[in-house]
């Protein structure tokens, strides 16, 4: 993001150049994008995605004449928990895919990679620079759009809670960057644009729609064939679930929205939909909570309250957030490993 349009912005530019071999690649990437319509299209798309649902809620309220107090107070949280979680996990990745799938593969097919790699850049520099550059290309419009959304909430009748919104921005930007790293890395590992697009599409599809069943099937296999029952099984299932950045993002955001001491426990617990006995195990033995059975109109429901030993550190919000960011490194490393091996 520091790679702004100005050519020689002096101190910072030079310092970054001195510090990072990949910096010129990232800067070139951003400069290139700034001059395309793409960046504006991205800003517009992101802004539309975030402002429209909130605007619609506002519009509905206009005709209602009087804003219900609860909605006014929790309008921001409602917007985040309902449309925004889905928008960020389902639509933003699609935008990212189209913005980044050609990052490396296009240079390979067009031949500009020959120019790039005849300069003293290692292939690692190219991948890292591309990930950093494209992250800026996606991140800047995203931040701009989120800024406008914040402004929108500030002037709307909904109470603007800057703390809640700041966390939402942090998680959303982190999620988007992880996804950008995925897509750019896939692009580095694939020989053509089409393959890169297909690869990114498959990864997106699995992360968004296939991951829960994958995690649960792993649990079933462990239980049925390895005799692994009880806490260990569900620990592994939760661990696998959290490996998906999509799941990690959702549970982090839910935990933030929940506020209060037990919010993280409740958010992790909310990732499961199992029978009563399993839910009890998950709450008590995996999440260190206090399971309580409640009578509801849908029958007995197990609710997980804080208590007991507390949420283990490795399932806590900071740990989930850290693992989430580790993905950027892992994706780039796999990409580099593939890219470094091939003939151009």
């Amino acid at each position, binding site marked *: 993001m520091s790679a702004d349009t100005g050519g020689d912005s002096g101190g910072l530019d030079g310092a970054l150049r001195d510090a990072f071999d990949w910096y010129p690649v990232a800067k070139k990437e951003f400069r290139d994008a700034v001059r*395309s319509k793409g960046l504006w299209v991205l800003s517009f798309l992101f802004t539309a995605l975030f402002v429209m649902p909130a605007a619609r809620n506002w519009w509905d309220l206009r005709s209602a004449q009087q804003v219900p107090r609860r909605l006014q107070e929790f309008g921001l949280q409602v917007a985040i928990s309902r449309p925004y979680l889905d928008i960020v996990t389902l639509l933003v990745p699609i935008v990212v895919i189209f913005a980044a799938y050609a990052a490396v593969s296009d240079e390979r097919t067009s031949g500009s990679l*020959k120019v790039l790699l005849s300069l003293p850049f290692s292939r690692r520099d190219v991948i890292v620079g591309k990930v950093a550059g494209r992250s800026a290309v996606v991140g800047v419009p995203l931040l701009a759009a989120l800024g406008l959304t914040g402004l929108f909430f500030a002037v709307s009748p909904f109470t603007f809670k800057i703390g809640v919104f700041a966390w939402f921005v942090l998680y959303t930007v982190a999620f988007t960057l992880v996804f950008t790293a995925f897509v750019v890395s896939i692009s580095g590992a694939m020989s053509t644009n089409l393959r890169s697009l297909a690869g990114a599409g498959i990864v997106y599809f699995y992360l968004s729609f296939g991951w829960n069943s994958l995690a649960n099937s792993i649990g079933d296999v462990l239980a049925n064939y390895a005799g692994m029952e009880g806490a260990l099984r569900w620990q592994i299932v939760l661990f696998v679930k959290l490996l998906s950045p999509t799941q990690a993002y959702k549970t982090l955001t839910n935990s933030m929205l929940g506020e209060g001491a037990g919010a993280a426990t409740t958010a992790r617990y909310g990732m499961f939909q199992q029978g009563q006995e399993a839910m009890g195990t998950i709450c008590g033995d995996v999440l260190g909570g206090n399971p309580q059975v409640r009578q509801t109109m849908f029958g007995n429901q197990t609710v997980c309250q804080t208590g007991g030993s507390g949420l283990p550190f490795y399932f806590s919000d900071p740990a989930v957030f850290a693992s989430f960011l580790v993905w950027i490194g892992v994706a780039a490393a796999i990409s580099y490993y593939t890219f470094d091996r091939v003939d151009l």
Partner: protein
Amino acid sequence: MPAIELDGVTKRFDDVTALRGVDMTVEDGDVFGFLGPNGAGKTTTIDVLLDFVRPTAGSAEVLGLDARADSEAIRERLGVLPEGYDLYDRLTGRHHIEFVGEAKRADPDPEAIADRVGLDRADLDRKVEGYSRGMAQRLALGMALVGEPDLLILDEPSSGLDPNGARLMRQIVREENERGATVFFSSHILGQVEAVCDRVAILQDGEVIAVDTVEGLREATDTGTRLVVSVAPGEAEAAADAARAVDAVESATVEGDDLVVAVDSDAKMTVLTAIEDAGIAVDDFETEEASLEDLFAAYTDEGPAPAATAGAAAATGRSSAGDDDGDGSAGADGDDPDGEDGGADR
């Protein structure tokens, strides 16, 4: 220490063998020509030097460093004009030069570079998208010059350049060489290589079939350009006399309605002017240069009976052009295939 040292470099792709045990040494300070038809493996060889492609067998050293392990250190000291490259459409010429400067930690002067390669200063701040092929080639050449490289690798540098651009490119090659750079110059055009190089390697089907000085190459190919001039019927003999009066002309013969002049390539225009000065209108003209096929024939057909193959017939045609008038008609039969071969080059 040689600038480039290839030792038994073999490269097999899935279904083709691009290089078959290439051994080659380019001495420091040389302008080294790397000549071969398209598809001979020139670009693959350069790809090995740049670590774009990893050899199946053999080893490559550039500037005394291993091409595979020390690629980044090598490329710090390299200026490269790749073949089949593409520039960044949305960036300007100045951006490109600055980018190379950042990559090499050099501080280039874009205006000076533009002047050197004959790129209009005003075009420096235009997006490369709007550049013609020749402008892009000039910019790419300019990018290769950033940071005073120790070794310049130019792959088909004259492609896309007009004759003026090609001349400027050759001048830059000489200047860079005088500065102390080694130049590795790959081309499929004999004339380009002859004009600037000290030594030449000839590559065919992934093998180096000859390494020679450029004088040796000249002898082998008998250098001459054939200039075929069409004039009004009946004026051919007068035109031939006018042509013979030019110093650089080795021979001028009338073949059918055409005048065929064997002349040093640089003096073509002088000949045409001389003919027109004699009051004869030139309807049309074309030049036929010694083709690579002729060259391969010269280097590979060292055995007996050079008359048998088509390649050898071409070589015969060439030597007849150097002979006097009397043999001219006798050689005319052999000239037709020669003309086709030579014409394919330009």
